[in-house]
């Protein structure tokens, strides 16, 4: 049954104000640090100031002697409190991934600054911080390696002696004959690109509160993944899942940084069990910068080949990924997550990819908004620009010549990935309707006359998202030891209002609202009558949480299907009450009415009343109650796409870049709530502009984190950004009945190459051919000086 065909979309498609907002705008949100339990103890960690060192002694006596300290523990003290190390869950068939044991507290050696070596538990927030400083740890420094390419050289210091190498794994994927493809090319370009390390920097730092009651534990955590956390914490701490309840309260942003099960979560749980008291840990921002996983950090060597007329022949990339010191949940998999779209929206006959992971003495990388796909888009799009320059072709013309055509979907890439639907010319056409390129070039030329360096950059992007097909991504597929279906339960109450339970776990995406819109249309009630419950493993069916732009395309579809099951049953009950055939009952504008007799109808409230308190005329073969569950496992990913243009001004004297205009045309299928889509796009673009121009996690050569606070880690403020111009085209996905594709990461995936290309376009008259991100004034100025033949670079 097609959902869209049987439901007049009344609420879907509307820019409904969010149901989440009233509590948040009045200060009545409930984030992790807002929750208190009587008798709670506070936890603070003693973290290593050394990037690589042997722990020679730990003296906890000073801290332990304090009146306000309840206990101090080292790894040895807690050796029996853990059933296993923190897991990494990617096991691709036939590939060995070097994975050191990763325990919540470190024993023997530390491998990066911030490694926790002891934990203090005490009676209040301030005193445990003081006490942690009184734990005296002596270290014997070991050689440090921070540069991933140097880490691969012979003789480099080893992060993990036992492996004999810093190379964590190699992973190769190929489709088509790349050697032949590049041999037959008339033009081949090569480029080294750096996707530097960034931070998730959610405004709310991480936090955990564990409330023990007898042998049961309620874990409140600022997490994107309460269900996965229960599974992992059960294994690590050795508590059966039925005794663990994980609650993600209001979560103040994640951006992937809370798509993790952290050692700190396991520690708080283990301490609450050991001490028999509630224990709370709220990290500081500097802890967040040093010990919440980072993202990106790849070096990409890219080769593209094309015939003289611009027809692409092949794409080869070698990807070196700096994974840091340990393997967290998905650490080695994140670079590879981009592979389905390595090739972009273009018809490459041959694609050849080689990934290498590298240990360094830095904290781990893992998923940060986009996770592998921003990196891929960055190198594909900029390499396409470089290829166009080598071919002396217009870069947009080169793109159009090689776009997968609107009529060529589903399109199977050389790597065997099936793009579901697309209209790449359509988004680019729309973009150029909004952005007059000829007028811009005239303006640019005039400005150049006056010494103003203005440039434009484009990105025509495609994304893979909606994690998704369990068998393709799971143990026998890509090798994740997990699955990615999603659940929904729709419960209609006796008075006709409804509660939707979703297995996703939103943290700003607005799913309380969009899921209510989806359910409301299918139930025949108002979205205000639909409550959406998420983020509590004791409520609703198991689910796989929120990341990878999956919540709507997978979780929302599950809601639609569960609500349709309810609708089907409501029709059967209605038919019995009205003495009509079930197939003659239709849902029109909130009324379950008999086709052709619109005055004969029942409302959902009347039907639900009958379902809960059955009248005599209700046949006994109709199961009572009005509640349905659906588990949805998609048959494919979804592939949103779009075309972006960024305009920048560069001050050639100082190297400062200002984004003066940003136009984005995106396609994520039909809108459930267009206002929420725009919001996701805005935030994604800002995140990417942050990466392109300002943000960078920097470690010095000794492995010290230089950017440990928001003083040094430069998030963009309102003053650095323009208002964004957004538009959409609508190309439904055939994968789900809603036709939707994810949009949460799109802006982040699309925007970095557009910004960089704009800077390169602005500086082309000065002879600048390349600048690596972040395009800080110093780097840009140095590139200008270098192009002038100066000595700066």
């Amino acid at each position, binding site marked *: 049954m097609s959902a869209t065909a049987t439901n007049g979309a009344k609420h879907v498609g509307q820019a409904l104000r969010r149901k989440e907002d009233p509590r948040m705008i009045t200060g009545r949100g409930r984030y992790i640090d807002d929750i208190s339990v009587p008798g709670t103890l506070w936890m603070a960690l003693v973290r290593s100031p050394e990037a690589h060192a042997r722990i020679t002694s730990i003296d906890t006596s000073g801290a332990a002697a304090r009146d306000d300290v309840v206990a101090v523990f080292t790894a040895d003290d807690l050796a029996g409190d853990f059933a296993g190390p923190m897991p990494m869950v990617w096991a691709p068939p036939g590939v060995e991934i070097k994975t050191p044991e990763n325990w919540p507290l470190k024993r023997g050696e530390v491998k990066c600054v911030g490694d926790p070596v002891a934990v203090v538990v005490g009676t209040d927030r*301030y005193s445990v911080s003081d006490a942690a400083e009184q734990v005296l740890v002596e270290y014997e420094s070991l050689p440090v390696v921070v540069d991933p390419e140097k880490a691969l050289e012979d003789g480099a210091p080893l992060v993990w002696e036992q492996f004999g190498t810093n190379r964590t794994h190699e992973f190769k994927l190929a489709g088509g004959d790349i050697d032949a493809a590049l041999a037959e090319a008339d033009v081949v370009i090569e480029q080294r690109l750096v996707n530097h390390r960034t931070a998730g920097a959610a405004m709310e730092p991480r936090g955990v509160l564990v409330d023990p009651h007898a042998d049961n534990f309620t874990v409140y955590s600022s997490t994107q993944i309460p269900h996965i956390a229960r599974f992992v914490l059960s294994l690590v701490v050795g508590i059966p899942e039925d005794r663990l309840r994980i609650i993600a309260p209001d979560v103040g942003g994640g951006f992937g940084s809370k798509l993790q099960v952290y050692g700190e979560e396991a520690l708080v749980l283990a301490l609450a069990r050991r001490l028999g008291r509630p224990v709370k840990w709220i990290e500081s921002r500097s802890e967040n910068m040093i010990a919440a996983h980072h993202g990106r950090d790849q070096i990409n060597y890219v080769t593209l080949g094309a015939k003289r007329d611009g027809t692409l022949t092949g794409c080869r990339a070698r990807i070196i990924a700096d994974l840091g010191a340990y393997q967290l949940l998905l650490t080695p998999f994140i670079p590879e997550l981009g592979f389905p779209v390595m090739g972009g929206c273009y018809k490459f006959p041959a694609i050849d990819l080689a990934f290498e992971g590298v240990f360094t003495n830095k904290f781990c990388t893992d998923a940060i908004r986009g996770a592998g796909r921003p990196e891929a888009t960055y190198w594909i799009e900029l390499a396409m620009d470089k290829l166009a320059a080598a071919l002396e072709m217009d870069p947009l013309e080169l793109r159009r010549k090689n776009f997968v055509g609107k009529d060529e979907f589903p399109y199977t890439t050389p790597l065997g990935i099936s793009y579901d639907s697309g209209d790449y010319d359509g988004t680019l056409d729309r973009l150029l309707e909004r952005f007059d390129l000829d007028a811009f070039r005239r303006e640019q030329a005039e400005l150049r006359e006056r010494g103003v360096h203005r440039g434009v950059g484009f990105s025509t992007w495609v994304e893979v998202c909606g994690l998704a097909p369990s068998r393709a991504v799971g143990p026998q597929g890509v090798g994740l030891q997990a699955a990615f279906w999603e659940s929904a339960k729709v419960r209609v109450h006796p008075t006709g209002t409804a509660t939707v339970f979703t297995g996703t776990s939103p943290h700003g995406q607005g799913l309380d609202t969009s899921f209510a819109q989806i359910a409301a249309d299918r139930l025949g009630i108002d979205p205000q009558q639909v409550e959406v419950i998420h983020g509590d493993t004791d409520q609703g069916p198991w689910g796989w949480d929120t990341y990878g732009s999956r919540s709507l395309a997978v979780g929302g579809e599950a809601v639609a299907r569960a609500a349709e099951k309810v609708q089907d049953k409501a029709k059967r009950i209605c038919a019995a009450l009205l003495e009509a055939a079930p197939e003659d009952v239709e849902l029109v504008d909130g009324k379950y009415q008999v086709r052709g007799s619109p005055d004969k109808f029942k409302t959902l409230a009347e039907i639900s009343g009958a379902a809960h308190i059955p009248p005599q005329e209700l046949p006994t073969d109709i199961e009572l109650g009005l509640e349905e569950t659906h588990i949805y496992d998609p048959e494919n990913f979804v592939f949103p796409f779009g075309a972006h243009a960024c305009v920048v001004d560069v001050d050639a004297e100082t190297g400062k870049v200002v984004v003066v205009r940003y136009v984005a045309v995106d396609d994520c299928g039909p809108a459930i709530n267009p206002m929420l889509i725009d919001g996701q796009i805005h935030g994604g673009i800002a995140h990417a502009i942050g990466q392109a121009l300002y943000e960078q996690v920097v470690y010095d050569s000794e492995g010290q984190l230089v950017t440990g606070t928001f003083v040094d880690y430069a998030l963009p403020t*309102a003053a650095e950004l323009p208002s964004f111009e957004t538009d959409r085209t609508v190309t439904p996905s055939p994968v789900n009945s809603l036709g939707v594709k994810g949009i949460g990461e799109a802006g982040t995936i699309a925007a970095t190459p557009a910004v960089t290309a704009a800077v390169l376009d602005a500086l082309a008259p000065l002879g600048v051919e390349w600048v690596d991100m972040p395009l800080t004034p110093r780097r840009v100025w140095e590139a200008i000086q270098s192009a002038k033949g100066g000595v700066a670079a």
Partner: protein
Amino acid sequence: MSTLVSVRVRVNGEEYELEVEPRLLLVHALRDKLGLTGTHVGCDTSNCGACTVHLNGRAVKSCTVLAVQADGAEITTIEGMAHGGELHPLQEAFWNDHGLQCGYCTPGMIMAAAGLLADNPNPTEEEVRHGLEGNLCRCTGYHNIVRAVLDAAKVKGASIPATASEQEGVTA
């Protein structure tokens, strides 16, 4: 632990007398002593502005003020912005314009915006952007926050009165 100090504050129109450690930050006094958890902490360095409140009519970052410094002060937090079931025009505008996603920066953003509008009731977009540069948001790209502040500025009463007693005068 050091000697406790007595502090009297008037918060959202109500008088409180607190016994605090001299080093206690105002934000923790509001959150942990008064249960006003709408004011958030997002950094250690006064960069993020999630903790912005009004102290004697001025927007301040309450992580940068000691509770003892607030002795005798009149404080307004996000919880004090709506009156008699009526949202403040900024709250209404943030809701209408989708000016929040995760909501964590929102209370500080609204309080900072109220301070901005008190100083400049009819700001331009650029003035709003510069006026809010002490407040970080990771979700919205600021687009809809800026729009919300500009929309709120069109509404009478959007610039918050300096004190709660004046607020009562407005709503009476």
